[in-house]
């Protein structure tokens, strides 16, 4: 270290003193402090980052400033985070290997401090959590933020329960035939099962499962299954089927029941090849009871392809009240919950002028364009679909948006 001490003196000798009119000497070691209250709105975007799955991440963005604020590293192939209502921490189930991509596997539920974005604590759980391309419904918080339920897949199906207050793993519960998890009711977790039914697990003050309720099949998974991308208002969850039907489900301490079902995509629209699109294709603005659906025109297997339009529905009247084209083809949507909401969209950007794109398309087809697509967060006015701004280039595979 002696050589460095010498160098410091060399620098100081040539650089002191600062003249009066010079720019001032600055401090080394500063770190920007983050405070939620400094931002009117915030949003997280989570990225499994394939093919570099060991580098999965979440990006924090101020949508009003269009500013990238920071990020979390979430280990191997994240399935996203949970955001407790208090806002003072962020909870993520993470998988790590002691040799990065091989060796001993450890699964931990990590709590991050929401101000410093540093990990505060972790709870080890059985190394069985699911990894999947879509993140919604792979874990859930109880409404009091005390318990986290984690979906496992080995490929045997089970759920791990964690007590976030005591910082301890509670138990692993087998749930054969059931997968994605949603919360609703006082302290209930509701699992979506392969026969179209739901399994409700009620937990007690210690997070132990005291009762299991199984609903009747509420849809036919072989004819028209719902996707996992549900949205929630109070104890009502809204899911859409691959065929574009909305299911309104009550998820309460009584279990899960069907409130009603109605089509978001009419037969006429289907004849025009309209279908649901993308990964996170539903968004709900709870104060106004408006539901947003990401859509595209394409063949039946296109349901996971990027959407080109957003349709707006009034949940009170069960009618389509608006629709607008998006600036870019897009894979996920979400909404802020304030009075003048923003629509958040993960859009595919081709970093070149439109006319150049068009020329390449005409002369060479789609393949050259496919190689250069980058995904970023696009921000629109939710009321009329006015495009506002973008935060481009968010990793390799950002798919999941969580307003915070």
């Amino acid at each position, binding site marked *: 270290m002696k050589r460095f001490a010498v160098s410091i003196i060399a620098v100081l000798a040539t650089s002191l003193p600062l003249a009066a009119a010079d720019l001032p000497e600055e401090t080394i070691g500063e770190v920007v402090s983050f405070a939620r209250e400094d931002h009117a709105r915030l949003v997280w975007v989570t990225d499994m980052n394939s093919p570099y*799955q060991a580098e999965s991440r979440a990006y924090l963005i101020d949508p009003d400033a269009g500013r990238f604020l920071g990020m979390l590293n979430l280990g191997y192939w994240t399935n996203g985070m949970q955001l407790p209502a208090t806002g003072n921490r962020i909870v993520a189930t993470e998988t790590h290997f002691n040799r990065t991509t091989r060796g001993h*596997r450890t699964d931990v539920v990590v709590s991050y401090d929401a101000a410093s974005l540093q990990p505060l604590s972790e709870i080890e759980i059985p190394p069985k959590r699911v990894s999947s391309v879509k993140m919604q419904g792979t874990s859930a918080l109880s409404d009091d933020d005390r318990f986290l339920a984690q979906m496992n897949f080995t490929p045997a199906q089970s759920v791990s329960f964690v007590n976030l207050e005591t910082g301890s793993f509670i138990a692993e519960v087998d749930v054969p035939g059931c997968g994605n998890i949603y919360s609703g009711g006082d302290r209930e977790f509701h699992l979506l099962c*392969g026969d179209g039914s739901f399994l409700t697990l009620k937990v007690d003050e210690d997070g132990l499962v005291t009762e299991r309720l199984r609903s009747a099949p509420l849809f036919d998974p072989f004819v028209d299954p719902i996707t996992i991308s549900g949205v929630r208002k109070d104890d009502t969850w809204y899911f859409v089927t691959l065929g574009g039907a909305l299911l309104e489900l009550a998820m309460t301490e009584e279990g899960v029941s069907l409130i009603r079902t109605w089509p978001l995509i009419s037969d006429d629209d289907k004849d025009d090849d309209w279908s649901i699109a993308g990964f996170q294709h539903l968004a709900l603005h709870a104060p106004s009871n408006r539901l947003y659906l990401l859509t595209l025109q394409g063949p039946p297997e296109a349901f996971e392809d990027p959407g080109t339009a957003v349709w707006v529905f009034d949940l009170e009247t069960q009618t389509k009240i608006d629709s607008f084209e998006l600036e870019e083809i897009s894979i996920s949507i979400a909404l802020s919950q304030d009075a003048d909401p923003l629509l958040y969209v993960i859009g595919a950007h081709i970093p070149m002028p439109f006319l150049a794109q068009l020329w390449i398309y005409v002369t060479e087809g789609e393949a050259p364009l496919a190689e250069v697509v980058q995904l970023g967060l696009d921000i629109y006015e939710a009321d009329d679909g006015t495009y506002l701004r973008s935060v481009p280039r968010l990793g390799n595979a950002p798919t999941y948006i969580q307003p915070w």
Partner: protein
Amino acid sequence: MNWFDNFFEKTSRTTARLTSRRGFVAGVGVVLAGAGAFPLLPVSRVRGEEIANDPGDPTNCDYWRYCAIDGYLCSCCGGTHTACPPGTVMSPITWVGTCLNPGDGKHYILSYNDCCGKSGCGRCLCTRNEGDKPMYLPQAANNINWCAGSSADIIYNCSTAIIVGVDDDA
């Protein structure tokens, strides 16, 4: 996998969408191979080689066997369409699909086993999704990381497309 790297290729693949929807529904299921019997074999088919009743290029997403796939093609990653790259292991359990072989007009049941133990290959991403179902229906779900069932745990490298039968109902 992150299909969006090449989603523009999709439209050009429309002509390859030959799967019988009815056939798929009849054919979905999960194939469990005997563990411990994974041979090491030389590359049996290289890029561009054509076989009369199995037409197409296994390094191209248009190849008929890939109708329900979602992942990096092992044929581009050091493996083949039926074998894993060196240094990886094949996950014994996965989802299956049914695809129409234009070489003989028959529908085959394909097992899309993942190769595991090296991280994402990143080459020849191919997402066709025909018959893909949500992940709570795992036997037909290509969004799940099927390396979960492998001896290398969940480290996903690439995907294969292996014939496990003919679907006579299709």
